[in-house]
């Protein structure tokens, strides 16, 4: 009977293979509570993730989760976190891309690698303001489209929001009804043509859902 590699050994082997293939683009690695964490350079992250998914030795076919972490320590960079899993090898791997919170928060999308990333990336955009380059439909997902207070899970965002409850209610009540449909939806079929001309003009000027 051959010895079966434990998940952590499997992850360690993957880290070695990553270092061999990508060299300096693989940053700090660490282990905590039996889980392997690897930092990636933002420039080559997409290439590395695609390799992890398609390489026959690695087979990280399952994207468990995408999220981001901002630390209370303002010196620490914001991190985009990918939880990968290889269903065949029973190995988990956590990958992190550090982003300078003062710089442009942008990474390449992985929706071309894993379809399941679509909503997860939308959520990270919504909650943290990280742009995913190449994502076909990067809209807010949990907050509504006209939401203008920023990205709630950032540490600079106060727990109760930037505006008072009364102000938030007032704005919600004053929102235009067309805010309930996206431009894309309204342009389907004849619905768009049936709208009043002034509403069409506002929508074309992308004034949809703006609160007064």
């Amino acid at each position, binding site marked *: 009977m051959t010895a079966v590699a434990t*998940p952590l050994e499997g992850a360690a082997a993957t880290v070695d293979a990553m270092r061999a293939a990508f060299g300096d683009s693989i940053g700090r690695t660490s282990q*905590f*509570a039996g*889980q392997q*964490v690897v930092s990636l350079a933002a420039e080559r992250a997409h290439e590395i993730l695609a390799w992890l998914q398609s390489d026959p030795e690695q087979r990280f*076919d*399952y*994207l*468990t*989760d995408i*999220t981001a*972490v*901002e*630390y*209370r*320590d303002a010196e620490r960079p914001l991190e985009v*976190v990918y*939880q990968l899993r290889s*269903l065949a090898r*029973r190995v*988990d791997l*956590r990958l992190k891309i550090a982003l300078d919170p003062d710089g442009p928060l942008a990474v390449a999308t992985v929706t071309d690698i*894993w*379809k*399941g*990333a*679509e*909503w*997860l990336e939308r959520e990270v955009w919504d*909650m943290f303001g990280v742009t995913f380059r190449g994502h076909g439909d990067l809209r*807010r*997902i*949990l*907050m*509504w489209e006209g939401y203008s207070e920023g990205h*709630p*899970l950032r540490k600079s*965002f106060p*727990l109760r929001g930037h505006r008072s409850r009364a102000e938030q209610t007032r704005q919600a009540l004053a929102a235009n009804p067309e805010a309930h*449909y*996206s431009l*894309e*939806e309204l342009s*389907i*079929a*004849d*619905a768009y043509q049936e709208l009043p001309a002034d509403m069409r003009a506002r929508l074309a000027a992308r004034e949809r859902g703006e609160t007064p």
Partner: protein
Amino acid sequence: MSRRTLELSVSTPTMGADGQVRNVPLGVARRPSESVSDDFGAEHMLVNIGPQHPATHGVLRLVVELEGETVKRIIPHVGYLHSGFEKLGEYRHYNQIIPLTDRTDYLAPMANNVAMAMAVEALMGIEITERCRLLRVIACEMSRIISHLVWLGTTGIDLGAFTPFLWMFQQRERIYNLQESWTGARLTTSVARVGGMMADVPEGWEAGLRDFVQTFPTTLREVDTMFTRNAIWIGRTQGVGVIGAEEAINYSLSGPMLRASGVAYDVRKDRPYLGYDEFDFDVPVGAHGDIYDRYRVRLEEMTQSNRILEQALDRLKPGPVNVADPRVILPPKSRAMGDMEAMIFHFKQVMEGVKPPAGEVYFGAENPKGELGYYLVSDGTAKPVRWRIRPPSFINLAALPRLCEGALLSDVIAINASVDIVMGEIDR
């Protein structure tokens, strides 16, 4: 040779301009493509379903683009129930987060509580007691049963079968009564704590659960009789909302959604926690990835959960529930009032909370809806830097546009039901 011809007086009654009904012989009336609007077939229609609609299982809104009755595109809108739980968690002690987990997947609150406690314990490296472990297994499997019962009942209603809904809720009520006598709450159970449970089960509770375990399979058999070979049920579910194994993996589906597509991945088997590897149970796996297979998988999972409950009851022996570690578990009130050290620990825990070391952990649990993941990042203080919920039904729902491609409008209701969503968890 004579040929008999039959003159059929088939005609279409129409209303003339003078208000008189006339019969127009067949073939004279214009075909639909030539009728009032010439491009009737090519016209796309926009239909809005929800957010207030019983068949969307909560405040889900679907904007559907239709060509005739065929779905061309479907755009789901979520977020109506967004409560910012992840943000709130960053301002709370670890044990104070547990009540928030009740309110995410509110159809299986106990399983969420347990997963949260397990995540913190993984961060701190705490070994729980044997009795606690079995009680948690019982809590998780009870949750799986009630969640699947609600799923089966409501999906039956969506497809026009009302009676099983009542059977399901009758059985669910029995588990709710057990939950209530254990935790004092039916829905917001908050049963787990870091390092233990909120309370041990009361006197006579185990007999109550055993009674349930022994009689529950009867209901499952009834449902099996009602649905599994029912022509209407089969017609509405087989071959509808199909997704193959490879695609299911690529869409990150989990739980019964993934297994119905033929991927034998169950967290309980593949990364065993709570000692699930010691239990004798099977993981049902489908083959076609359609609604029918999802139904079969969930029905069988209830049977298997029942088996696990039975085994857990057999193994449950008296003993301590909480770990003997005053850093995580409150000392008994009687000691805290008389013993100096106990009082200090009591004070520190209430005022400062449980403090895990700096680090991060991802804990995945096999919840009824799929893999629930808690990703905790700690900086050594009593409140997490980041508490991320990997919501299984959010990720499963993301595949809805793909599942509904080319389906009929009525199938959208069936497919949406088969995903088994709970909006509290999707919107968090």
